[in-house]
């Protein structure tokens, strides 16, 4: 079994890379890109097999990479691979995106698959860069100024995140006494490392940028607004999970770190409410979904925080399950925007009911996958304040998602054309799958799905949803008009600060022009001589 799994793991990366290689031959390029829906199949298989059983670690010869698959990673891998397969197949059936888009897509896919199976620092860093940076090409190669802006902001955060993580990883590596770069080893050494706190801070900040953690949330609404629907579905569904798996992999498990736990939980809940509040101010369904992502990722962050607070060792599985559910539902919701925009007014009640179920699944509506996700998180949010905060966030989510359903009637322009026709036609199936697939996995990975059917649980799940929906309807009835908040809220301040930063450019230019004058350069050289001499003569 392990041999098969090892082969599948290697194939998971080899398949998209082989297609990428084929893109270099002009004759094969279009064919290769059209076939890329096949590339995640090994990953899907690996994910399904790896979901049960012990973690598997394989060192690749020559390249020096380590591949690693544990059940939480496998779950996310399987679900992400399925999403990539479905969307890629539909997209390339419907139209023929150009080479730049295709290659960006393939690179992002490779990185996305890779983050779930990378087992050492360097290869994780590599695939993490792959899932972050080429995604720029999926929405920003355009002359539209808003898209360019979104692209630039996205890339700025991606690169900044990379830089922060680079330093974090270097510290992790430095703290490992035997020079092993395997994530398992460095994480084992982390609690005793002298750089523990600095590394943790950087890790939280770095992955926080990927999951839109407040205050690094501004890029996400801009990005999803600018991205075409299939791209937004993938990035919000699968792409963001690179940050989640990052936190799962690089936060210590089974170790109690009170300070970090409290901080993480606090910032997580803050993000959860922040997303709801700012999402309510928006009317564009894509943007609302983006804020919902910020909120949901906040819940995940909070869960990881409470795990750290209590020293829970198995939080990673719970969080992974929650994210897997979010992955499916959020992607389906983005497709819903496209499907509804295409269908226009000819909407059957079945469709509408499905959409409602999908939207409220995020809030934990009983009988949906969301209910299971909530159940899975229960150990993290067990008890007093934390439990209350979690319930409040469920109410908020229900509120926000009802707002989303209300805004579906006015889809953003182009939504109908963006969504591949295949996905519009089969939308009910997709939505149903998103609602039901979690049930299939929950049992498989050792959860007890029947618990979710207990009357008490159903009641527990139902009332926050009801409160949220009622609140939303009440707000609608009151014709409450929210303040006008720009998409991406705090990002405008960041952009302003950046523009101010650009003012140092001329300062540097002046400095450089002056230093490049002959006398200045000559004097600099004399100063260098004198200072080196002084440095030497004055000892040490």
């Amino acid at each position, binding site marked *: 079994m392990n041999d098969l799994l090892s082969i599948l793991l290697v194939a998971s990366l080899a398949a998209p890379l082989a297609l990428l290689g084929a893109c270099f031959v002009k004759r094969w390029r279009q064919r290769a890109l059209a076939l890329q829906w096949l590339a995640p199949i090994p990953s899907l298989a690996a994910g399904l097999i790896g979901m049960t059983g012990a973690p598997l670690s394989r060192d690749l010869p020559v390249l020096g990479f380590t591949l690693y698959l544990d059940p939480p990673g496998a779950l996310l891998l399987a679900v992400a691979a399925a999403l990539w397969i479905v969307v890629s197949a539909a997209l390339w059936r419907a139209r023929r995106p150009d080479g730049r888009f295709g290659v960006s897509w393939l690179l992002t896919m490779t990185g996305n698959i890779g983050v779930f199976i990378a087992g050492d620092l360097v290869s994780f860093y590599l695939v993490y860069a792959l899932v972050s940076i080429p995604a720029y090409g999926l929405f920003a190669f355009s002359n539209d100024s808003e898209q360019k802006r979104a692209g630039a902001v996205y890339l700025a955060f991606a690169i900044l995140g990379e830089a922060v993580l680079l330093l974090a990883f270097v510290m992790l590596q430095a703290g490992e006494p035997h020079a092993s770069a395997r994530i398992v080893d460095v994480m084992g050494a982390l609690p005793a490392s002298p750089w523990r706190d600095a590394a943790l801070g950087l890790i939280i900040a770095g992955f926080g940028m990927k999951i839109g953690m407040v205050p690094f949330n501004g890029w996400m609404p801009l990005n999803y607004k600018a991205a075409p629907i299939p791209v937004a579905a993938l990035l919000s569904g699968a792409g963001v999970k690179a940050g989640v798996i990052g936190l799962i992999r690089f936060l210590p498990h089974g170790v109690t770190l009170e300070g970090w736990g409290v901080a993480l939980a606090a910032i997580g809940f803050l993000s959860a409410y922040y997303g709801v509040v700012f999402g309510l101010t928006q009317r564009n369904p894509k943007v609302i979904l983006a804020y919902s992502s910020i909120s949901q990722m906040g819940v995940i962050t909070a869960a990881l925080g409470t795990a750290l607070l209590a020293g829970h060792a198995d939080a990673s599985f719970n969080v992974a399950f929650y994210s897997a559910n979010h992955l499916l539902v959020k992607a389906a919701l983005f497709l819903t925007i496209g499907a509804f925009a295409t269908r226009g007014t000819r909407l059957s009640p079945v469709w509408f009911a499905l959409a409602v179920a999908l939207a409220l699944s995020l809030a934990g509506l009983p009988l949906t996958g969301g209910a299971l996700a909530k159940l899975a998180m229960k150990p993290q949010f067990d008890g007093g304040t934390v439990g209350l905060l979690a319930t409040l966030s469920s109410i908020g989510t229900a509120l926000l998602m009802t707002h989303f359903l209300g805004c579906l009637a006015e889809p953003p322009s182009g939504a109908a054309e963006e969504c591949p026709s295949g996905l519009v036609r089969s939308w009910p199936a997709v939505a149903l799958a998103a609602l039901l697939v979690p049930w299939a996995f929950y049992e498989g990975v050792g959860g007890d799905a029947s618990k979710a059917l207990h009357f008490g649980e159903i009641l527990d799940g139902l009332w926050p949803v009801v409160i949220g929906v009622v609140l939303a309807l009440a707000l609608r009835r009151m014709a409450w008009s929210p303040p006008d908040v720009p998409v991406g809220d705090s990002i405008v301040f960041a952009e302003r600060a950046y523009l101010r930063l650009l003012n140092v450019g001329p300062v540097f230019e002046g400095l450089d022009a002056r230093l490049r004058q002959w*006398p200045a350069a*000559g*004097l600099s050289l*004399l*100063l260098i*001589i*004198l200072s080196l*001499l002084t440095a030497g003569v004055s000892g040490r």
Partner: protein
Amino acid sequence: MSVLPYLDVGLALLVVAVAAWTVAARALFASVVSYVAYGLLLAFVWIRLYAPDVALTEAAVGGGVTGVLLITAGKRLGALHDIGPDVRPGVGLKLLTGVLAALVAGALASVILLLPDPPPSLAPEASAAIDSAGAGLGNPITAVLMSYRSFDTMLEKIVLVLAVAGVWSMTADEAWGRAPSPFRRSRPYAPTIFLAQMLAPIGTLIGIHVFWTGANAPGGAFQGGALLAAIWIITMMARLAEPPRVDARWLRMALVAGPAVFLVNGLTGEFVAGSFFAYPPSVAKPIILFIEAFMVLSIAVALPMLVAGPSSEGSDQ
């Protein structure tokens, strides 16, 4: 006490004064002339340092050939623009530069005074080795140049070839292949012609002599070659000889003859003496003289070509 120490101090002061004038003179040409004088004065300092070989070199190259080079250039530039660009440094900058330059010079002077005593020297080793690998060359400097540091010497000759190629690369494209015309005076001064006619035969003899005696007494390939070069330069200035075309095969071969023979000999050293650039002890001296003869040729051609500059339009009418 002899009068020599006072002479030394006086000479040093004179050298510094002329150098200062070179830096301070307002006019470009005055500065150039001052530098040439400085080069000649410096030769005396070298004699006082018991460095006759260097003094010869300094006189021939530092004073002579460089002098012609700079004066020609100074004249041409002076004809074009006397002052150069009118960017004058401010007082503050001058002061700062002065202070920093003085600090560096002061640091240098103090470390020179702090040089260790007794001084380290390779003279004993050179003296001991001179009879074996030095191959019976009476002039230790020639021994060092041609044997111990032969690699440097060959490289230096290649640097000369490269400098010639570099100078030629400044040609305008249309003029490529023609001869340089460095001395644009339509009619040379009569005294120059006379001097050239007088000096050519004598100078040639002296040059060959300097090279030949260089094996045992002060002098050697470089000094001999430099003298021959000077003669050629003077004859060109007197228009008694025209510079050759830069694409003349003989010219190219003469330029690389020295380093090429050196290189080939260095290669064969591996087979006849067991090591690259080694000489078989029994025939070391003749081989060295053989190589030096070609080096004299190369130097005697390279220096005038460097002075003559790139080939120019209208020189081949």
